[in-house]
């Protein structure tokens, strides 16, 4: 029983990590209908920003998280204004090719400035090691991830998805001409949404660095997980991304524990099964 609950907790924590990693992509892809693979690069950048501010300026880890959010949000805004906004109307393949190109460029740029080595980084002592909770030995950082992930999910669902701004953003995507005719500044709405998506990716990179490491190959290593979570959850829903993250996380950890020979195989089986059953994802909006 104890081991079952520990595995369940670890699965939830991993699921939260997957959710945190992919929610930025879910925002840009779902609310703006823009396939931005460079979200993974924004996450990497968030990790580098976090390391830079904590190590160079001695800023505490917790404070470095909002800094990573804002800094990467601004960077993504600049890129959106300069490049991406010209591709909003184009088809998916064009967007995929464009943004994967940006991923490769980001790898080269990061290697140029920070070198190819893995970044050295450790979380503060109160976040490392284990903690006894109700008789269970849990890893402190995982408890932290569950708390942060939960708070983030609530904040996004009620602060972004179910607000007037969320409705405006969807209106701008669904019918830009009518939205403009109604007096909405679609350019501004897109820019803000994109910056939020980018910022979330940056935050994710800073939060995940402890478990996933930071190096120039970060985007390519984890991009596939982002895409899996977003497509299983259903494009366009934050709650769907959360459910998908948790489901995949728990399934992955549980199968690896009870049937390790199946290993990392299960996450893909679930993905294929869900895609066959509901091609638009668990919570996907119908077209």
């Amino acid at each position, binding site marked *: 029983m104890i*081991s079952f609950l*520990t*595995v369940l907790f*670890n699965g939830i*924590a*991993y699921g939260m*990590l997957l959710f945190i990693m992919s929610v930025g992509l879910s925002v840009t892809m779902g609310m703006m209908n823009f396939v931005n693979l460079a979200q993974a690069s924004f996450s990497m950048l968030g990790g580098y920003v976090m390391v830079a501010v904590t190590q160079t300026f001695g800023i505490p880890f917790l404070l470095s998280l909002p800094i990573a959010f804002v800094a990467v949000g601004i960077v993504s805004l600049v890129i959106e204004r300069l490049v991406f906004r010209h591709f909003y109307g184009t088809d998916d393949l064009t967007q995929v090719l464009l943004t994967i190109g940006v991923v490769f460029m980001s*790898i080269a740029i990061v*290697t140029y400035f920070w*070198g*190819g*080595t*893995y*970044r*050295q*980084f*450790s979380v503060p002592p109160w976040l*490392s*090691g*284990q903690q006894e909770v109700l008789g269970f*030995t849990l*890893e402190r*950082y*995982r408890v932290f991830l569950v708390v942060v992930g939960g708070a983030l999910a609530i904040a996004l669902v009620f602060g972004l998805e179910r607000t007037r701004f969320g409705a405006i953003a969807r209106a701008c995507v669904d019918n830009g001409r009518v939205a403009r005719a109604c007096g909405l500044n679609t350019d501004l709405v897109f820019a803000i949404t994109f910056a939020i998506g980018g910022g979330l990716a940056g935050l994710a990179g800073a939060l995940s660095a*402890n*478990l*996933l*490491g930071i*190096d*120039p*190959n970060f985007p390519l*290593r*984890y991009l596939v*997980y982002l895409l899996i979570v977003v497509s299983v959850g259903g494009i366009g829903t934050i709650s769907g991304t959360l459910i998908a993250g948790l489901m995949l*996380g728990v399934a*992955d*950890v*549980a*199968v*690896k*524990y009870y049937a*390790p*020979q199946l*290993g*990392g*195989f299960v996450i893909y089986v679930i993905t294929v099964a869900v895609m066959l059953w509901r091609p638009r994802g668990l919570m996907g909006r119908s077209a």
Partner: protein
Amino acid sequence: MRALMSALTVIGLFLGLGTHADAEDTIKIGVLVGYSGISLLSGQLTDGAIKLFQKRYGDAPGGKKIELIRRDTTGPNPEVAKRLVQEVVTRGKAQILIGPDFTPNTLAAAPIVTEAKVPTFVIGAATSGIIGEKSPYFTRTFFAIPQLCKPLAGYAVQHNWKRVYLMVADFAPGHDCEKYFSAALAEAGGTLVGNVRIPLSNPEFSAYTQRIKDSKPDGLFIFMPLGEPSIGSLRAVNDSGLKASGVKIMGTGDITDETYVDAIGDAALGTITTGIYSTQHDSAMNKEFVKDFEALNGKSPRIGWSAISVWDALRLIYDGLDAQAGSSFDPDKFMAFVHGRSFESPRGPITIDKGNGDIIQNVYIRRTDKVDGVLQNVEITSMPNEGFR
């Protein structure tokens, strides 16, 4: 059309004659390593080693000026490696190769270098059954899996870590290591309490660490490829409390490689590994090597095994070319010269086996410690002249 063809033929003849004329006083060496992707650091260290070697020993051994042809294998990618080897050998006219790295790449190169008689130095593939079997022109200056996977079994039993859990990456070298380690453990009188194969792309280790905890081993042996899997597994083992509960963490030196041990941080402390080279190795030659390498190439990335493998390959190339001074390059004579060579390297004494060209070297048991505030692999015992089988 016919005129065009003949024009091309004539031009081709001229080009052919042109390269032939100076073939006597240059030798082309293909360097095929990862300059991007997961093995980017190996590429940087390879170039660093070549730079230092040429600074010390010049660039014209035996009167033949060395011309390097560098190509990026981009990682374990046999199709790319095969194409690059073909290009470097047939169009580039490379007469010696350093690399390609990784086992699949090396296997892809075998038929080409055999047919073209190109001596090839294996500097980044450790699987057994490559050297001497896939091509007579292969020489290894890296290590063979059994060299690093076997010795720790006996060592663990000696130190009373008799119940050992085995965790390997789920790919050919991992399976290889699993085989050698468990056989050696049984022979030494230890017990394998469990083993698990971990997918190469695996960001989540908690299920595995929980399983390991459940079986209450004395020691945990880890074999992971270079890079993120090594970092992730050691950090996870530490975070899960396995290490704190007294389980001894062991593995091949890949898991605490100098190029990224800093990123693992204190989670690496106390890890017992087998290794072919540590920058801490206590010899005058090594101290000078480390000092000069860092002075020339900087302190980052830290010197890892790629640097030393390439360094020793260059030693063999230079000595082999010196031995052929004054005559044109003969690959078979070169191979005969290389086989059976013994010399001192910064890692310690090494010998190239006379029979098959694989490496015989000292294997060191090391502990990851902080030396002057920096994580280092400190050698505690050496096992002289470990063979490759």
